[in-house]
């Protein structure tokens, strides 16, 4: 809305940008990476994507909750203030006691709802505080969820044969996840990069940068073109600057 207003007032070009694609583009730019397989993990999205057949194709994604949303929701249940992710990561570091949790990978897609429910149940159980503590749940939750993410990323890496892996989104800040994705990248002789934190989470620069790329290849959009489509999928969008 503001962008539309400003472009009218200042008579400057208006360019519509897809949020998910902007995450990948700023990552490519900041990490000097050309054609990566991207694992994009945040509060709103969990996507494994790579550029193929002129689009950012989605090879795997969550079938229900986004990973960041799942962790934050669990943290809220445990009375940890928002954002819960960094706190969960810290709690997990002090445990090595694994409590069994459901692991759900379907092909290259993931499901976190069962994992969330099971973790919540551990929290409410009578055994909580006696047989195990919050550190143990945080540890088990991370180990399970991240192993799932790593498995689908590896599968997509083997499938696409890409030689670079990019980790982005708010959850990319998690050291444990970085370590795991780094491990499989090494195994497949792929270069691994994490987008610097201030550009990995949602930011304005990524939108501006992607708009520049699009403007230089295709020009500006009309106001009608920039109607917000919250359900638009990244694999539906043309990427003229990469073709």
């Amino acid at each position, binding site marked *: 809305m503001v962008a539309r207003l400003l472009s009218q007032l200042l008579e400057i070009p208006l360019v519509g940008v897809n949020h998910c694609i902007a995450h990948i583009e700023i990552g490519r730019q900041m990490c000097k990476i050309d054609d990566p397989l991207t694992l994009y993990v945040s509060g709103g999205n969990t996507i494994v994507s790579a550029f193929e*057949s002129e*689009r950012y194709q*989605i090879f795997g994604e969550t079938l229900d909750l986004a990973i960041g949303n799942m962790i934050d929701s669990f943290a809220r249940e445990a009375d940890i203030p928002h954002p819960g992710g960094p706190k969960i990561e810290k709690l997990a570091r002090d445990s090595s006691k*694994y409590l*069994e949790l459901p*692991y759900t990978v*379907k*092909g290259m897609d993931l499901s976190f709802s069962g994992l969330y429910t099971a973790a919540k149940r551990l929290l409410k159980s009578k055994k909580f505080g006696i047989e195990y503590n919050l550190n143990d749940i945080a540890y088990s939750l991370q*180990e*399970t969820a991240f*192993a799932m993410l*790593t*498995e689908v990323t*590896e*599968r997509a*890496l*083997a*499938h696409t044969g890409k030689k670079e892996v990019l980790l982005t989104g708010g959850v990319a800040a998690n050291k444990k996840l970085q*370590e*795991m994705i780094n*491990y*499989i990248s090494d195994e497949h002789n792929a270069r691994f990069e994490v987008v610097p934190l201030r550009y990995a989470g949602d930011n304005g620069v990524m939108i501006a940068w992607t708009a520049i790329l699009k403007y230089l290849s295709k020009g500006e959009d009309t106001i009608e073109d920039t109607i917000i489509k919250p*359900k638009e*999928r990244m*694999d*539906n969008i043309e990427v003229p600057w990469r073709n």
Partner: protein
Amino acid sequence: MNLEIEKKKIFKKGAEASLYYGKWFNKDVIFKYRISKKYRLDIIDKKIRNSRTLNEARALIKIKNYGINVPCVYEIDPEESIITMDYIPGEKLKDLISILDIQKLEDYFKKVGIFIGILHQNGHIHGDITTSNILITPNKEVFLIDFGLHDYSDNIEDKSVDIHLLKRVLISSHGDYYKICFKAFLEGYRDCYNESSIEECESIILNVDVIETRGRYIKKEERL
């Protein structure tokens, strides 16, 4: 089982499992070995490899009983996550499509349709029906392989997704033959449903088209 010897004859290496060729009581066999992944905790790794090995082996044994050509399972080692199964000589249907005559091609795809129809009616989902996972033996028999993504379901949606995968592979890898192959497949698939179940069969086939109109796939299909 002396895996060290067999490991030298690696047959195929996938993201999840490696196949080794070898002998088992003088029979030609394949050892399917699920690879341990160091990035995950041992306890998670063991659980996944163990359950997937058992799931796949059980599925193969059950499916063989329906008269579907699948490799015979000889030995299961859930601890090491190894399935020892029949070595099926033959070629992937993928490599034959462009050189077969049309009649033969139709026969093969009809047979695949019948096999998948029987699987679905008995609540099995193959999970990865691609032309790489269909073998044609030297005696012209059709074999289904790789049940690594097998699942149990009586859902129309799951069955449609199963068929949709084959359709996508046919369009993207064998575009010129897609119509002939898919038509023959559906013919075989319909054939194995009877009067009381044909309605469900039609809903499954109709739902394949519905899946394509969902955001995820529509543009891909349009582009082709």
